């Protein structure tokens, strides 16, 4: 457990030293959301109609940005070998890296949700649900993304391969997340959709690190 926390703490410390990476993801998220009013026109009804799906898609794409560096940067400077020999099981290492990715990318995206939601004219009463749905969906992406990053590590064009691998796996998260926000905007309880999203996270939480760990060990 202390090894897990050590890796997580190191992720956060490194992110604080390089705030530009986190900032880039957040700005990407906000800018993609800002493109929709320009493309579709400022009609409030249409914007509010597409807001749930647009928020989810933009957030997942933004969270995908730093993923190919998750293990790539470690492999380049030799740290990955040391991490694999740290005495931490590879799956625990992958779990810590996935959680680290969520803390330094997913969490800051949540803080930017009100800005993005306002630009998409999402009703204020749905903002809380939007943050919750985005939090769960980016968590799912961090987990699948860590597995994808481990699998594509060392592959030529890994950066291109990674989204092709991870985004299809994230489709259920987009469906349930958007449905939850839409329900909240329409005045219905988003609870069932959020629970489904939570179930998805509960499945990914043990499975993805195991897959990533196996890929890192080279089995």
């Amino acid at each position, binding site marked *: 457990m202390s090894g897990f926390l050590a890796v997580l703490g190191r992720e956060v*410390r490194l992110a604080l030293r390089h705030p530009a990476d986190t900032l880039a993801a957040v700005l990407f998220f906000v800018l993609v959301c800002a493109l929709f009013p320009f493309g579709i026109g400022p009609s409030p009804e249409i914007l509010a109609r597409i807001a749930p799906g647009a928020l989810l898609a933009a957030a997942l794409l933004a969270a995908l940005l730093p993923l190919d560096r998750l293990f790539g940067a470690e492999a380049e*400077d*030799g740290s990955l*070998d040391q991490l694999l020999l740290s005495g931490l*099981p590879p799956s625990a290492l992958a779990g810590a890296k996935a959680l680290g990715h969520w803390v330094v990318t997913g969490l800051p995206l949540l803080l930017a949700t009100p800005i993005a939601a306002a630009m998409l004219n999402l009703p204020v009463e749905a903002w809380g649900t939007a943050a919750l749905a985005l939090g769960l969906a980016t968590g799912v992406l961090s987990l699948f993304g860590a597995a994808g990053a481990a699998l594509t590590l060392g592959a030529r064009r890994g950066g291109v391969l990674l989204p092709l691998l991870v985004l299809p796996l994230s489709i259920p998260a987009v469906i349930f997340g958007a449905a939850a926000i839409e329900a909240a905007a329409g005045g219905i309880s988003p609870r069932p959709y959020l629970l489904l999203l939570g179930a998805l996270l509960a499945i990914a939480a043990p499975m993805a690190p195991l897959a990533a760990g196996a890929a890192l060990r080279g089995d």
Partner: protein
Amino acid sequence: MFSCAAAGWGEFGVLEARDLACWRGDRAIFAGLSFQLEAGGALLLLGANGAGKSSLLRLLAGLIPPAEGALLWDGADALADRVAHAARLRYLSHQDALKPSLTARENLLFYSRLWGGDVAGALEAVDLTDLAELPARILSSGQKRRLALARLALAPARLWLLDEPTVGLDAASVARLGGLLAAHRAAGGAVIAATHLPLPLPGARELAL
């Protein structure tokens, strides 16, 4: 420096390689490699570039599986439980594995949280105490190498696998490494080092690849 008893190692028997082979693609880098290494022993890996010294060290660390043969630790398969195998070794790769934005102390602090050990003592052992608060990116290549070596001094492990440990080091640093190696072997640790440069490892056996 540290004793066998203090490290809680108990009896350390023998590391034995039996007919190890390593393949890259469809080409054998080496095959039929066998050796034994006992507590306090040292083995120098010699060979031309591409002879497979680094591959052998990675194989011994459990980072790549052997294509053939077995690696035994005290008579039992060493690679059956790779996490346990990792816990008894330190691997110094040809890369320094430092995070450039973290200070020298922070780089070591992370590993001390994993393995335990005294960061200040390890920095002292490689004479980097004065530079402890500098980010690793502004250290010279020799200083970076010393910081990577400080990981060895952090917490004891029974087997050190060193890939070109003295690259970029000045004479004083090589002598300091000699002291570390001697203390490690006196405490019952074993060393396997790949090198092209003379290493302060008296009595080391040589293995040509």
